[in-house]
């Protein structure tokens, strides 16, 4: 039986962590993810978990400690945001290439500068090539559910990759909303225990981790890692199917809302998706065939699946909540456009960079994007490919 509760995104993730009861939690605080280890420290103090809770001196060290623990055969977790994630950068790539399935919660926050503590995806998007699986949540419920699925995806023998469970800083991390929690026993049964085949503390079978890879090996190692990320797609769907069977909530690579006959559509991530759906509801009542796709899994990128659902649209806006400074669009736009390039049918597409550093995204703002899309669809031409929205002009 699900438990009716009301929790912030951070407490929801901390609760999921408590139920998983990992062997190691290495922490270093940074706003807005700090509450996750803060709640967890209380669980440790209250004896509700038997996790080795390590307070370290930096994020570089927290992830390094997790890698050591994972290599030793333990299940390790951490949490961070913004500059903390950037400071892990070097170690993120090590985690991916060592194929150590650390699970990390990221309360996504802008990167400096100017200095800002609020939400956008500057931090997680900057690490999109690090080899981490990235799963994004619209609200506390999804952050919780994604965390419950995380270990099974990351630790699957076909995958063995580290994974980020991303929630929107403050908007999700600090907002209290209703949530359905699952019973501890049910979660433990779903997540299962971690029994890696090889690990450093297996004394009958010595192991060397992280060897030097000269040119004769590096390419092969990277191709194998790329294949693991491709394999993750099937595993993500399998775990989601089992999650739905067990707990009744459905997940996939993305959630398509009123897309069957949509002529204009928006591709968006995280907490703004619900705001966009509210705009779609209003527009549909006026006869506009609008739809929304909320992208849940950014790594691996579900390019073929997105192309299939977007190809019949006339005009699509890709909503980028990070500025890639490419001078021709944000990262989500680049990848979505790439995914559609070989489609026989494809929509006209625009990139809208919005919501940086906590700039609010309203139903009115979403409707204004759809207005643009309707114009583009009617005129068969893109007014401007790459624009910013919400800034003072």
């Amino acid at each position, binding site marked *: 039986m699900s438990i009716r509760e009301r929790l912030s995104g951070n407490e929801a993730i901390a609760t999921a962590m408590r139920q998983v009861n990992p062997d190691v939690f290495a922490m270093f605080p940074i706003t807005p993810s700090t509450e996750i280890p803060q709640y967890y420290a209380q669980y440790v103090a209250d004896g509700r978990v038997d996790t080795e809770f390590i307070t370290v001196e930096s994020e570089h060290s927290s992830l390094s400690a997790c890698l050591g623990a994972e290599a030793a055969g333990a299940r390790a977790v951490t949490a961070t945001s913004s500059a903390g994630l950037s400071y892990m950068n070097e170690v993120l790539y090590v985690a991916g290439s060592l194929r150590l399935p650390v699970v990390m919660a990221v309360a996504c926050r802008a990167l400096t500068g100017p200095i800002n503590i609020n939400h956008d995806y500057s931090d997680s998007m900057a690490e999109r090539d690090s080899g981490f699986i990235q799963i994004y949540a619209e609200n506390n419920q999804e952050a919780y559910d994604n965390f419950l699925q995380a270990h099974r995806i990351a630790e699957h023998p076909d995958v063995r990759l580290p994974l980020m469970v991303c929630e929107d800083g403050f908007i999700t991390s600090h907002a209290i*909303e*209703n949530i359905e929690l699952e019973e501890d026993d049910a979660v433990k049964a779903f997540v299962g225990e971690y029994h890696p085949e090889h690990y450093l503390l297996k004394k009958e079978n010595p192991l060397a981790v992280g060897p030097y890879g000269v040119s004769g090996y590096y390419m092969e190692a990277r191709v194998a890692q790329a294949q693991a990320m491709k394999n993750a797609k099937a595993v993500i769907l399998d775990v989601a199917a089992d999650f739905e069977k067990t707990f009744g909530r459905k997940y996939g690579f993305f959630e398509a809302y009123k897309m069957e006959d949509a002529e204009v559509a928006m591709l968006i991530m995280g907490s703004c998706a619900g705001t966009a759906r509210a705009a779609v509801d209003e527009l549909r009542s006026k006869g506009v065939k609008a739809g929304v796709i909320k992208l849940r899994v950014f790594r691996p990128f579900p390019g073929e699946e997105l192309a299939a659902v977007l190809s019949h649209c006339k005009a699509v806006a890709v909503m980028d909540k990070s500025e890639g400074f490419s001078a021709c669009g944000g990262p989500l736009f680049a990848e979505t456009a790439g995914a559609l390039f070989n489609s026989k049918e494809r929509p006209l597409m625009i990139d809208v960079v919005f919501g940086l550093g906590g700039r609010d995204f*309203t139903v009115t703002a979403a409707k204004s994007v759809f207005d643009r899309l309707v114009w583009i669809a009617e005129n068969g031409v893109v007014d401007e490919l790459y624009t910013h929205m919400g800034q003072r002009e």
Partner: protein
Amino acid sequence: MNDMIEIRWHGRGGQGAKTASQLLADAAFMAGKYVQSFPEYGPERSGAPITAYNRISAERCSVHSNIYEPDYVAVVDETLLESVDVCSGIKEGGAVIINSSKSPEELRPQLRGYTGRVCTIDAREISLRNLGAYFPNTPMLAAVVAVSECVEREQFLADMEGSYRHKFAKKPQVVEGNLKCLREAMSEVQG
């Protein structure tokens, strides 16, 4: 979603406007509603104006923007009336609820032309009278419930009593004072 009530809280860092919005969410949650309670964060400076929000409805609300056209506005510190346009966007039929010893008529000239319903509650006096210290949140919470009717009164009082008995299990003597704060605020709110 027509039944949804949106509330905006204005306070100063450290006064507990965020906590008040969480308490209201708790009360509505206990009454079986779907809730949102979220602060608008800036630099965490004690005394700086801060805003917090509530959405309360019968179905899960998926909109995650700030609230620009609230049904009700709660002002925890009346000195904010000078610097913040607290009544901005209040819907027709809504109200502003201000923590003040003044009457609604005395405060109206400070409300920048706002013509809607104004309510006041002397949260300081009620708190000092019942708790011996200044905790504005409890009377403010009750005043907002009384004015907005976002939760049914008797259920609200019963739920809060249960919540206080749990929260103050080791200090049962403070339960009655808090409950009196709630009841008196509900009857003493003006406007």
